[in-house]
């Protein structure tokens, strides 16, 4: 599987990951190489196999719907890069 520049840029866009020109080049080669190695999985017959999403067989973990204290607002905002009026502040979303 060969990943070209356009595909690398498309994946980076999906991941909202800025890449430099050099990184695009490098990832195109490295990811192609890694994906080639994944081809080995095609040898495995999985036609009647259920996919495993996890390793333990717990299902539907429920808890009581009880109100509890959350973390103090000031503690949570303490790590915020930018805040305003007790809110996280972001750049404009609409033009």
């Amino acid at each position: 599987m060969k990943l070209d520049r356009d595909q690398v840029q498309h994946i980076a866009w999906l991941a909202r990951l800025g890449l430099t020109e050099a990184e695009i080049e490098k990832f195109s080669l490295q990811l192609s190489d890694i994906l080639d190695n994944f081809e080995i999985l095609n040898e495995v017959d999985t036609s009647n196999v259920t996919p495993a999403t996890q390793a333990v067989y717990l299902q539907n973990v429920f808890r009581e719907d009880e109100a509890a204290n959350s973390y103090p607002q000031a503690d949570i905002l303490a790590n915020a890069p930018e805040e305003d009026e007790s809110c996280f502040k972001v750049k404009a979303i609409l033009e």
Partner: protein
Amino acid sequence: MPSNRLCQLTIRQAHELLKHREISSVELTRAALERIADVENRIHACLTIAEETALRQAKEADSHIRDGNIAPLTGIPALIKDVMCTKGIRTTCASKMLENFVPPYDARVIEKLKVQKAVILGKTNMDEFAMGSSNEHSAFFPTHNPWDLSCVPGGSSGGSAAGVAADEAIYALGSDTGGSIRLPAGFCNVVGLKPTYGRVSRFGLVAFASSLDQIGPLTKDVTDSAWVMNAIAGFDSRDSTSVPYPVPDYTGQLISGIKGMRIGIPKEYFVEGMQSEVREALGVAIRKLEELGAEIDWEVSLPHTKYALAAYYILAPSEASANLARYDGVKYGFSYPNANNVIQAIEKTRQFGFGPEVKRRIMLGTYALSAGYYDAYYVKAQKVRTLIKQEFDRVFERCDALVTPISPTAAFKIGEKVDDPLQMYLTDVCTLPINIAGIPAISIPAGFCNNLPIGMQIIGKPFSEEILLRIAFAYEQATDWHKRKPAITG
């Protein structure tokens, strides 16, 4: 007792001395801090040293001990991998993204240590977001192997393993997604246990691959591993994959011996290209287990082992790409300041906040989950996961445990594999199938090759940690590899 002897103590030894008031926690903590100051310029195991809080905790522990309240870990200084949240102590995941992140809460395992009045010395270096096998992917600096400073300590819990091996702490906590406790334990000659998935709460563990991650101890011997497991194992309602099974006393079976136990040797783990010294050391270790009364089953086969690496490097990056989507520069962490709009802010934050290996895995995972490729890669890997798990289930119908090397080679040189991701990924070929199956495994010292440690891996069925510790203890009693100390020169 001189301070350089103090930091060589095991948990059990330190506990006895504390209990009988022959030493104080402050003395022990000072000794560890002195040792850190002495060797850190060569080892680089720590990212944060919390001297002030550690000494305060030690004073508190001493006052508890004076009042007759001593738990197994009371007053004993530990290092914590910098992927577990510590309230008030920055938690970086060795990433620029979280360089200044100070968690507002403790991980469940930290709460549990604090209940026992343990002492937290600081936070250890690791591969960024736990992605790597050498600690070279730390955004800050690589950790050096105490046995040979030109070699890697293994990863991603390399700082925790090197720190314990160099006696900078009495024990450490690490996390293991594909071998990240066991590989560095093997490379640094310490004991590393990856518990069954669900056994130890992941609450407050910064997520890498949520269906694979598990926290466990790195210790100087097997008894200490059992002691730490007693402290950290157990159900937690804040981790919905935590399993509500009762927690045994992990020291309970240590001295029961291994007479009549069936230990399988899966041939697929003795791969071509394996270092001959590693193969020989494992052969000697297996004969020792036989001498101790175990029945060795050489006919065990796990034919899907060769697909585990590919399945893992689809599943783990896929989960990582979803988990790491949270780093957008809005709520915490690094934030790119000069963007024009919100999308650019997110893209630039992630461009400058993440290092190369993290980016590589986000790309890989995003690709495997993207439209048109989801079935071919992600679902396929999940199906192979089912087959790998079933294969282990079948083998454990005839065996109590399996023994394998921890890695095909001993520690490699710093710089040797860092530019070749596939070679680096192959380092974990013996450890990552265990995470895929969610089962427990322990790495224990089993020999040396040119003064570099060789690790043995003992693998068990789900929730069989007691059996693994029992086999490991029997072997440890009959050998003295774990007593060797590195010279830390060069």
